[in-house]
């Protein structure tokens, strides 16, 4: 679908032959953030695209590099229109500083998700337009030189060709002239039926080599002249405050430079009760990280544990369960639920629970900052560079035009790296010591100071008729609500907590009554890859099927019988067929299925699971089918499906964040165990569910929600044990 911004896009054409000197005294890695836009020998057609005199094509991307395929897609959007091989495009980081100085030269065109590194679909049309516009400018420049109509020219392999006469000119030779061209009309971008590259070819990550030879620089790897290292101990529970600490106990330890209480400014994305992590943390600065870490671990710190010092998971669970008996905010109310329940042949009822989960990216949070009187240089593995710039400006007291963010690779994000607490902390520490400082959160701090996937308790009730089909259902969910957490006056409907129970759900069940209670606890919840209520929804649908004597796939076919979007049935049929749904399996081994709509992507999975009589679970395989509309990078999508499914399976098996005496209990991978290769199932990705049309949805999150219910539904079929909470490690799954 063409966005409303199309008509307003004015591509600012600048022709700059040379520009951007290196600032004296800064290490080379400072240079790109500092350069007055184009580097030497580059001609900018606009802020997104430059061409060098040698004909190299440079795409400036606002998407950070976290290996999720986002930038491969960006390169493909451009290449489709420009007519070059994607491997011929050089990717460079767009500068968030430039975006600020030039009135949003990136974000004004790209919209509010411009700098969000999780997906690129919102920028597809824009980047296609950049490529198409550049192509026509290059053709126009060649046409003028050759005195032939531009329509007779072709763009290919970074050159413009005139097939009729065999003449060619490389982009490098045309760039300056092309930059001066003003098109009377911007060309239309290719529609999906015209694509020759998108969806047809798979493109590898351009920086794959740097990930296999140790040369890739992640935020945690940055080294800057004169840099010190910092380790941090946060206030261990929310609302806790720092009573005292004893620097003299560690000040003389080798390498220790400074011991300080942090005391940053307030952070707008952090509610008042959670500011303690930023205001009351203690930091040790040393000449090497280990010296800082050793000292912070040895430092005596006296915390006032605060008013929430007795908070516990058990206590919160009681609060949530108590709310389950009280009417909630109504999200949906159709027909006459009460009457339908009265008239039911059979009523199915169940209560489900889902836990807090931690993102656990392999690279812990870290940030390196250098603060002087008139600038901040910042290196941070973030998934939101605009937020990093704003936070650094706030904490340093300098304007956003003085903040320079240097690109680094990101070692996993999954929603954890939006807020930039670590940026604020690093800037505060750098100011305090007057030198560049690299702050690294230990794994323990990562686990305990997370912003977790929200937890929930959900009551379901369904009325079945004599035909075994549901004719009414009631859902009341009590969720940790991110919106209530951020704003105590929030009284609305929390879409994130409730999807796909009442939204993004195409099941046609009459007499639906869906209610909601919003809760907060003493930990923070926030964005988490694929978070939502898919587990409870798809598990309960399975309960309805079983109670009514229906096959789970057949029941869903019936529930989706009038679904407007043909993708639902297409995806369901694809996964059922490809997984050989219903094939005979030995005792203790079974298939289970689930399907969830997430971020516009319908995703269905069939898990094949065996459970030994002693209760050991083995997930053998997961077949996945999906509808994202159009696939851009087939192998990139395959990788996201594989990875998202393993992420979701890890969540299912052993992950849970619990609270005791106000503190998060878990700390590292010994008590927050992640999935390893031995338990990774075979994942088979099937593309036949895609409906094309005008949809082109991201694929990174959608594979996560169906995993848990698909596996748990398989376990039920294999053992007769219905799983109503996870992780599975809580349950005795033995059977005989």
């Amino acid at each position, binding site marked *: 679908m063409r966005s409303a911004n199309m008509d307003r896009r004015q591509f600012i054409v600048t022709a700059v032959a040379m520009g951007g000197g290196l600032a004296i005294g800064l290490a080379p890695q400072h240079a790109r953030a500092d350069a007055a836009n184009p580097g030497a020998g580059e001609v900018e057609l606009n802020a997104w695209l430059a061409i060098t005199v040698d004909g190299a094509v440079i795409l400036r991307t606002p998407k950070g590099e976290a290996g999720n395929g986002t930038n491969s897609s960006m390169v493909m959007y451009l290449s489709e229109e420009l007519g070059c091989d994607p491997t011929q495009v050089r990717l460079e980081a767009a500068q968030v500083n430039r975006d600020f100085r030039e009135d949003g030269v990136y974000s004004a065109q790209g919209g509010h998700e411009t700098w969000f590194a999780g997906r690129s679909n919102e920028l597809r049309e824009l980047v296609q337009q950049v490529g198409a516009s550049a192509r026509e400018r290059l053709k126009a420049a060649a046409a003028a030189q050759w005195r032939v109509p531009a329509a007779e020219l072709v763009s290919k392999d970074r050159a413009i060709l005139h097939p009729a006469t065999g003449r060619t000119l490389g982009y490098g030779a045309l760039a300056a002239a092309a930059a001066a061209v003003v098109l009377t009309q911007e060309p239309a971008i290719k529609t999906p039926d015209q694509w020759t590259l998108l969806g047809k070819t798979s493109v590898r990550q351009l920086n794959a080599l740097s990930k*296999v*030879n140790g040369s*890739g620089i992640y935020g945690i790897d940055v080294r800057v002249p004169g840099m010190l290292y910092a380790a941090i101990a946060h206030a261990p529970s929310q609302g806790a405050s720092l009573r005292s600490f004893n620097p003299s106990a560690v000040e003389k330890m080798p390498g220790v430079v400074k011991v300080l209480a942090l005391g940053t400014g307030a952070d707008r994305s952090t509610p008042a009760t959670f500011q303690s992590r930023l205001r009351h943390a203690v930091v040790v600065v040393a000449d*090497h*990280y*280990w010296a800082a870490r050793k000292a912070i671990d040895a430092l005596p710190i006296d915390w006032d544990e605060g008013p929430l010092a007795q908070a516990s998971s058990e206590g919160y669970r009681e609060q949530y369960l108590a709310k389950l008996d009280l009417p909630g905010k109504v999200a949906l109310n159709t027909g006459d639920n009460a009457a339908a329940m009265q008239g039911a042949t059979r009523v199915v009822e169940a209560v489900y629970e889902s836990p807090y989960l931690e993102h656990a990216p*392999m690279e812990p949070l870290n940030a390196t900052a250098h603060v002087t009187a008139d600038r901040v240089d910042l290196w941070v593995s973030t998934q939101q560079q605009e937020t990093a710039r704003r936070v650094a400006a706030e904490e340093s007291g300098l304007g956003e035009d003085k903040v320079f963010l240097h690109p680094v690779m990101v070692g996993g994000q999954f929603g954890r790296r939006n807020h930039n607490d670590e940026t604020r902390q690093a800037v505060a520490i750098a100011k305090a010591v007057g030198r560049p400082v690299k702050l690294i959160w230990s794994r323990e701090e990562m686990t305990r100071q997370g912003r977790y996937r929200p937890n929930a308790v959900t009551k379901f009730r369904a009325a079945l008729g004599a035909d075994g089909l549901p004719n009414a259902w009631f859902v009341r969910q009590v969720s940790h609500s991110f919106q209530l957490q951020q704003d105590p006056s929030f009284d609305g409907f929390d879409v994130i907590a409730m999807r796909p129970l009442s939204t993004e759900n195409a099941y046609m069940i009459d007499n639906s009554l869906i209610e909601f209670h919003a809760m907060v606890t003493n930990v923070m919840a926030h964005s988490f890859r694929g978070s939502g209520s898919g587990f409870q929804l798809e598990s309960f649908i399975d309960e309805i099927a079983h109670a009514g004597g229906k096959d789970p796939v057949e029941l869903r076919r019936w529930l989706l019988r009038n679904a407007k979007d043909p993708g639902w049935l297409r995806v369901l049929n694809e996964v059922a067929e490809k997984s050989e749904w219903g094939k005979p399996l030995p005792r203790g081994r079974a298939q289970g299925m689930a399907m969830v709509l997430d971020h516009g992507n319908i995703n269905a999975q069939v898990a094949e699971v065996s459970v030994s009589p002693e209760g050991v679970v083995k997930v053998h395989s997961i077949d996945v089918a999906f509808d994202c509309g159009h696939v851009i990078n087939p192998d990139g999508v395959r990788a996201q499906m594989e990875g998202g499914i393993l992420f979701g399976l890890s969540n299912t098996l052993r992950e849970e964040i619990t609270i005791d005496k106000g503190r998060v209990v878990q700390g590292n*991978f010994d008590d927050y165990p992640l999935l390893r290769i031995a338990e990774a199932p075979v994942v088979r990705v099937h593309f036949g569910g895609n409906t094309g049309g005008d949809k082109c949805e991201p694929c990174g999150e959608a594979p996560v929600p169906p995993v848990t219910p698909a596996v748990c539904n398989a376990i039920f079929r294999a053992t007769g044990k219905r799983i109503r909470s996870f992780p599975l490690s809580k349950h005795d799954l033995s059977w005989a």
Partner: protein
Amino acid sequence: MTTLKINGKIYEVDAEPDTPLLWVIRDHIGLTGTKYGCGIAQCGACTVHVNGDATRSCQLPVQDAASAQITTIEGLSPDSTHILQQLWVEMSVPQCGYCQSGMLMAAAALLKNNPKPTDEDIDTYVDNICRCGTYQRIRAAIHRAADEAAV
């Protein structure tokens, strides 16, 4: 001062004797390919070769590494030509890539000792954590490396 032999080069480092080798490699010597993931030898991101054996360097005090031949990811091959490195790129194994230094070092040590590893061997010796979930491709790449070496 401690003398270390890393990737065939000699380094003299001034680090406290109980400093984990991981942090000496990263911060004192500046080879940042070896990564910190957990610090308690659970995740394997810090895997190096010590006298040819895959070792989690976060739990090895530098004084205990003083007489050893140490290889880091930077030294696995002169120019990224180890068969595993080539297959990792060709088969698009990495996603974020942060775990892959350690993963490659574990896989390389396995293949050196056992040119035709079974799935169970891979499960046991390449049990590094990958949060992005690239295990399926890791397994396929190791098997293919074994097959290609056998030809």
